[in-house]
């Protein structure tokens, strides 16, 4: 029963292999086996959004995905936002500048939901932002500073794109 299964997948551009029991969530696998502890685990039933990561180009809940289901997929976690020189991503810079976090527990999930939003929609309206982040809970900020952070992140990414 429940013998470990081999899992090969790509995380933040690197091909990795590991082993997990079928019951291990992808969130636990990332944290405990791959030592990627940036992904946080909050409610473990999909409601809080802290564990949000990118899977094959879409934001998903890593607490509601089994590690074995991630076989052959391409993941990006919050660690993947850093560039090769370990510089923060413009989205992260924007969250710092606009105080988009206080305790920071929910932040990895907000960053990943924002990442998908801005990839698909570089100049979102406030409604688009609220829709995209509606599945992420924050207990500190009252959300206004998060919305401002996303607006600023969009500007930063757009000016980076026009500069390059």
């Amino acid at each position, binding site marked *: 029963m429940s013998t470990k299964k081999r899992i090969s997948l790509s995380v933040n551009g690197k091909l990795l292999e590991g082993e997990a029991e079928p019951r291990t*969530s992808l969130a636990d696998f990332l944290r405990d086996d791959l030592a990627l502890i940036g992904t946080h685990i909050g409610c473990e039933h999909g409601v809080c959004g802290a564990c949000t990561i990118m899977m094959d180009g879409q934001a998903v809940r890593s607490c*509601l995905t089994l590690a*074995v*289901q991630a076989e052959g997929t391409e993941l990006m976690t919050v660690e993947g936002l850093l560039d090769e020189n370990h510089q923060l991503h413009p989205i992260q810079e924007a969250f710092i500048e606009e105080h988009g976090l206080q305790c920071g527990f929910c932040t990895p999930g907000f960053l990943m939901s924002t990442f998908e939003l801005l990839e698909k929609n570089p100049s979102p309206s406030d409604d688009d932002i609220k829709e995209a982040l*509606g599945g992420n809970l924050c207990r500190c900020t009252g959300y206004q500073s998060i919305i401002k952070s996303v607006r600023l992140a969009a500007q930063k990414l757009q000016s980076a794109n026009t500069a390059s």
Partner: protein
Amino acid sequence: MKPAPFDYVVPETAEEAVSCLQKYEDDGIEATVLAGGQSFVPLLNMRMARPDVVVDLRKLKTLKYIREEDGVIAIGAMTTKREVEESELIQQRQPLFHASTLEIGHLQIRSRGTVGGSMAQADPAAEYPAVALALGMEMKILGTDGERIVPADEFFITYLTTEIDSTELLTEVRVPVLAEGTGWSFQELARRHGDFAIVGGAVTLRLDGGVCTDPHIVLFGVGATPVRMTAAESAISGQAPSAELFAQAGEQGAAELESPMADVHASAEYRRHLAKVIIKRCLLEATERAGGSVS
């Protein structure tokens, strides 16, 4: 909040999945199918489900499709809600189904949650079962003896229970396209956008010679399954649309509800009140979309 141990198999085809399920059943082993996991994994995490074996459908790429054939949009059970949401075919040919998809949870849930999973889960507050009933969808079910087709009004039995046997697989959901001239509405009331609805409604109707014809009024969140509101439908059939008529239909609908659910989200009385509000709003909107105006 960690699942109890279970064994895990990943069949390559739908037929293989079904014969796996049959074998487990014959051997007295409890096996559960896993699709997108957005309802089932929470149950595993909370140990409300403790199957011996999980049969993961993730390799069944042949059950991932959206295509129109003879006035019906056939959707493979493993198609995600994101794929429905992004489908131009569905947006154009079945706008009611499309609109209801956008109300399901959050984008991050719709990335993985499947069409088949929502039908099979049969949550009384879920959008898809209600839309299935309102539009007269059909469910294609595969067993070791072959396929059968079950209409929506026979498919949903009670809370979290459908016609699908523990040895069967839902393979396809068949959605009739919205006929030209049909007005529709999908509305729900929830505490926050993305939450399960407290009460919601899915409505279609037509206007012929200035009167309402062929109304389909379905509410969800009010009982063990979605409910077709037949008294409200009779109240408007053959009548000219008016705000007064629709308010009356709301009253009749609310009276028709036997005993609306009561839970932490809302009392039975509040749900009865919302039923009235939703029926009226849906009828007004559907009439407008059918090209009519309301006196």
